[in-house]
């Protein structure tokens, strides 16, 4: 294969600046039949070689123009004013994730290229990086404005309560992940960790990859946490990158960002559903999702015990009235009264017993006062009832009859209490414990 001769290309008409570049050895074979190239062929050959000259060039953005399908600007050397015309597709521009404006200092990487139809030398941009605080800040503000206008900062989803499954995107190295784990309460959290760089060229694809992966493979995660420590605006670039921010916004899993910052809140934080600035605070936020239970539970316990205490107090204060009602209702029906009385005391006894048992199950922090007061009252009323029961028992005529006493009725059915109330010869009826006797009065003694 015939080797191509090294060609030196003179620059322009004055020839004073010497060589622009040298074509490397090797390259495309040339048909031996010709000793010249067509323009198209020549430019194609050049472009082939130029493609391998990947390089990064820095300068100031001027004449920035965004068209439908492509973007162009001139990168100007501030020192000697030379110009490099830059082009990129609109897709590449958006993927780069950085918004440009005239005046910004940027570093572009890509490769040189000759646009054949115009014969112009230009630079095909693949990535863009703002240089210096000024440009970084400018890019930040541009993106901030754009995303805010689109409404990406306005949607905030609430983090679920009682979080259990957590997806974490962060760097394996450094203290961030350790601080996070250390400050999570031992509530059985399931942490799935997706390792990614958080700085440098690999950060943007790493973070985006993580968000995509988790959404695809673990869509039931309760929350996704993205964390990095603090740093300069330059080291934060991945978190002010448009693609990263859009990926966060489109996550179906709610996103919590824990990213350190000084003055400017990283745009990733503004797009997320919630943000804090340290890994510790991130852990606390997750712990907080359990607050309803952690502080709610003892409160419920207190309320229920206290209320039930009042409840029983109310009940026990009504006891004398209950008693009176029952007595009033049954009145002369002593048997019924007795039955009812034992029923009540039985119920109160068992209620009392059960109250203790229930409080024992519920907790050790019993409102001792409530129990004591109720206990005292109940004991008091129970003894009252027992006294009445005794009285009833003693007054129960059936009982006396069983002991051998009897009741005597006159002819008209009235109970005879005085011997004077009967006449000799009158027929009287005697009721015994068992059975009755009919008799005739023979004699009367006072």
């Amino acid at each position: 294969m015939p080797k191509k001769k090294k060609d030196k290309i003179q620059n322009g008409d004055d020839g004073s600046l010497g060589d622009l570049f040298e074509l490397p050895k090797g390259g495309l074979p040339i048909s031996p039949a010709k000793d010249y190239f067509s323009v198209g062929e020549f430019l194609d050959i050049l472009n082939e070689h130029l493609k391998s000259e990947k390089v990064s060039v820095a300068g100031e953005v001027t004449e920035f123009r965004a068209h439908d399908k492509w973007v162009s600007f001139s990168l100007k050397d501030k020192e000697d004013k030379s110009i490099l015309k830059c082009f990129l597709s609109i897709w590449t521009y958006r993927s780069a994730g950085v918004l440009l404006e005239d005046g910004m200092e940027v570093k572009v990487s890509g490769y040189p290229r000759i646009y054949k139809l115009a014969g112009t030398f230009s630079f095909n941009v693949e990535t863009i990086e703002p240089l210096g605080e000024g440009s970084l800040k400018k890019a930040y503000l541009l993106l901030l404005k754009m995303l805010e206008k689109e409404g990406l900062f306005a949607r905030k989803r609430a983090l679920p309560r009682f979080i259990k499954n957590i997806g974490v995107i962060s760097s394996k190295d450094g203290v961030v992940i350790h601080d996070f784990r250390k400050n999570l309460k031992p509530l059985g959290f399931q942490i799935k960790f997706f390792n990614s760089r958080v700085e440098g060229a690999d950060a943007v694809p790493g973070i985006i990859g993580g968000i995509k992966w988790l959404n695809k493979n673990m869509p039931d995660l309760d929350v996704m946490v993205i964390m990095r420590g603090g740093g300069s605006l330059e080291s934060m670039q991945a978190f002010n990158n448009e693609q990263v921010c859009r990926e966060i916004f489109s996550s179906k899993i709610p996103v919590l960002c824990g990213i350190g910052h000084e003055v400017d809140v990283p745009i990733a934080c503004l797009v997320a559903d919630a943000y804090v600035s340290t890994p510790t605070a991130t852990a606390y936020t997750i712990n907080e999702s359990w607050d309803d239970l952690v502080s709610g539970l003892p409160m419920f316990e207190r309320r229920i015990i206290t209320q039930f205490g009042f409840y029983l107090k109310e009940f026990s204060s009504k006891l004398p009235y209950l008693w009176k009602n029952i007595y009033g209702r049954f009145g002369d029906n002593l048997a019924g009264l007795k039955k009812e009385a034992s029923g009540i005391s039985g119920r109160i006894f068992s209620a009392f017993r059960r109250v203790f048992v229930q409080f024992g199950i519920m907790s050790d922090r019993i409102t001792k006062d409530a129990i004591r007061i109720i206990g005292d009252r109940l004991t008091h009323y129970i003894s009252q009832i027992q006294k009445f029961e005794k009285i009833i028992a003693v007054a129960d005529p059936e009982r006396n009859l069983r002991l051998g006493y009897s009741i005597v009725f006159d002819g008209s059915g009235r109970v005879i209490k005085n011997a004077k109330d009967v006449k000799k010869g009158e027929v009287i009826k005697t009721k015994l414990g068992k059975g009755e006797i009919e008799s005739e009065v023979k004699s009367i003694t006072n």
Partner: protein
Amino acid sequence: MATKNNDIGESLKKLEAIASWFEKENEIDVEEGLKKVREGAALIKDLKSRLAEVTNEFEEIKKELTKDTE
């Protein structure tokens, strides 16, 4: 998992209902009250077990075919 979160939320709602029942009730019904206390006690016991100390689990995801970021 969604069901676990919901369970706890549901139980808390029930406890709230029980506490309010006591706070509102005018008619004193000891039997009903005891029933509610028993329900409340069971819920509280279950929820307490959810709050018990359980070690967190940490697992690094091994990615099969993503661009290597190491």
